[in-house]
């Protein structure tokens, strides 16, 4: 598939394949209304009900082609296969901390790559307005930071193991409670 499969040619000024970041994600992109895409669409087709759609779909004009989508899918496929393979690593390479540690690292890296491939291309995050990117990334960062801190506060920085408290007595397990209702 080539780039002309999309209707990009219609917009003339934009080259869909080249550095989409620059055209939509640059400084002025946040205040998207003045972007040239909108102007051109409105100017080219003043009479259509593309009034509804013109600017709304502005983001897609730089979107990948079908072929690119398939490429990304195969990359994702391969990455997932690699992920699944880590499950068998211990049987292939023998058990051991090193294997496990490498496996976990690889898994986390692949997870992040897959995450951003899907978000960036399938969800058009790379090509869309900077605002949605920031909204979404902000949510992700808040989620990651607060839950990481909360989990560490619960499991790592606890008092059970406080240096001065050499040998804390074993916890008194709670008494089991009677069957409710």
């Amino acid at each position: 598939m080539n780039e002309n499969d999309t209707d990009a040619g219609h917009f003339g000024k934009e080259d869909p394949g080249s550095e989409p970041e620059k055209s939509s994600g640059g400084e002025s992109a946040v205040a998207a209304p003045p972007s040239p895409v909108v102007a051109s669409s409105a100017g080219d087709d003043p009479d259509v009900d593309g009034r509804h759609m013109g600017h709304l779909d502005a983001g897609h004009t730089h979107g990948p082609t079908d072929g690119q989508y398939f490429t990304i899918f195969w990359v994702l496929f391969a990455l997932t296969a690699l992920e699944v393979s880590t499950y068998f690593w211990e049987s292939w390479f023998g058990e051991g901390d090193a294997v496990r540690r490498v496996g976990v690292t690889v898994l986390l890296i692949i997870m992040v790559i897959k995450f951003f491939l899907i978000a960036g291309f399938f969800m058009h995050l790379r090509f869309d307005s900077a605002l949605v990117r920031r909204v979404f990334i902000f949510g992700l960062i808040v989620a990651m930071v607060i839950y990481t801190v909360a989990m560490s506060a619960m499991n790592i920085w606890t008092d059970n193991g406080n240096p001065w408290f050499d040998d804390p007595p074993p916890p008194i397990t709670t008494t089991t409670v009677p069957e409710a209702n």
Partner: protein
Amino acid sequence: MTIVHQRSPLELPSGEPLTPPKPLGVFSRPKATSGWKSWFTTVDHKKIGIMYGVASMLFFLVGGFEALLIRLQLAVPGNDLLSADLYNQVFTMHGLTMIFLVVMPLQSAFANYLLPLQIGARDVAFPRMNALSLWVWLLGAIFFNTSWLFGGGANGGWFAYAPNSGVAFTPGHGMDFYAVGLLIMGIGSTVSAINLTVTVFNMRTPGMSMMRMPVFTWMAFITQVLLVFALPVITVALFLLMFDRLFDASFFDVSKGGDPFLWEHLFWIFGHPEVYIMILPSFGIVSEVIPVFSRKPIFGYPFMVGSGIAIGFMGWGVWAHHMFASGMGPISVLAFSLATMFIAVPTGVKILNWMATMYGGRLRFTTAMLFSIALVAMFTIGGLSGVTHAVAPADTQQTDTYYIIAHFHYVLFGGALLGLFSGMYFWYPKMFGHFLNERLGKWHFWLMIIGFNATFGPMHMLGLQGMMRRTYTYTDGQGFNVWNLVATIGAFTLAVSILIFMYNVAHSYRKHKANPVDPGPDPWDARSLEWMIPSPTPEYNFAELVVVEEFDEFWHRKYGHDEEGRLVRIAKTEDVVQKPGATGIHLPSPSYWPLVLAVGLPLVGYGLIFNLWWAVPGALITIMGIFGWVMEPADDPDGGHEHHEDESPSDDPEAAAELTDGAESGEASDEETVAADAEQTEEAPVG
């Protein structure tokens, strides 16, 4: 973009909208825009805002009554007016009512009413979703309060620490209503928060850049963003609690490995931003009122906005300061203690900026201004006591004592509520077309300030003397007698001031009916866009959209300044404001479906608590609501406005209605998402 018009040769005729789609449903489309019925189907952000306000004031009376019960019980040592169990229910319900049923919806009321007006829009981004959030919240709130009829209210404290909130230790249904009720209200708040966030991003009038938005709009906007990110966290916690209580899961059952800290963290990750959710809108209101009555612009607008953002941002990093005594370990305590101390900085900037705004001004002491100044004075006290327990070792002495009660009432009453009252007096003419009586208003103000300080001031001392929170009684020998009695007297003074406020509302209305006086569009000589339009606000908000060229656009159309920077009038107000009586403006059509959808949720709630089969009718109603909603166009095709062809400027399709219509199927499905997401409430546990 012509893509839409290109026809594929394979396209089926069925893809062609030959006739405008008709609403499929059991109801005919509601048409009324006035009369009592219209309130149930309205999608008008102003009516929705007013309903939020009225409902939350009614709940304010409920919460206030609970507060009086608490104060009566504690007036003398060893009192047995309330049993320990009833007292636990009353203080829990008092807290929950005041937070979720009064302060949050009151800020919603102002945000709903004012956000579109202040950014010059005709409505919010999704008018029907707006109605949905009102009804979901209101019915959820009523559902929550019906717990009194089913064996008693929630009695685990508003923070509901596990495992005490579990079924083993709190076997009644109160905590079930807590979990399910808050989940239902959370759906309403999430929908509303997303809606208003999008409104602020997207619906601004030409020229209204983010840094030209009034401070109230900014603060309400930050509040919505905080809600968007905080609510899912409490949703998780509440689901875990609900599964524990209703389906025998063991998330907080220590004998199965559950960890009570999980609840604490999840709750306070939500709970701390929640504090700013309650206080920031009031900061915004004050930032509107003080400049108007000082005849000066707000001092340091970018710093006001920036400090609001900073507060919102830092609010995420300090939740564990509610847990200094929980034993989470010195490293966590140290980190959160230091983070907490510095949140005082942006708050201090705000207070100093308000004072700088007043400095050199020409102050008019209307009731609204008095309340705003009182907020500055009272919130300072709450803020300072806050700093004293940001210091973690000190906090281990102060936390869970009445010192904390004093602190957060100075923040939430002396901050949030005084600000909201200020806003009520300020925007009342805009909302209802007549003033509240100023004389009665001043009685209200002074009694409230005296009562408030008499109630909560002594609690500082009680707390330092060691009186703990959530205690249903105290003993004669503990030395708490005097100040408790003073606090009780103060509480009743407060109650009297609220009665005066209610009388004021009724009295002003009667006087207005007998002898209507038009307050005019701009009764206070104010600054932001909502004062350019007639009072009460016409249904269409703006007859023509305002093109904004600077911050305080309306003010600058009225006033310029001379070489010294002193104020000079350049235009008469009458010439600047918009004239009433515009016609032919297309507005979003009313709809039944938000109400229908919302009715189903409490029924599902009862089903979850008592018998899963009872959830079926509720689920069916909700699904019917979603179905009707999706099938109903956002705009009534029979509404008489062929707006697509209509090029007249008065029917400028910039209006919200037009926008949502512009992507009508998109909107419908998007709303379906949220609605369907709401549906998880009943689906997840069943499935």
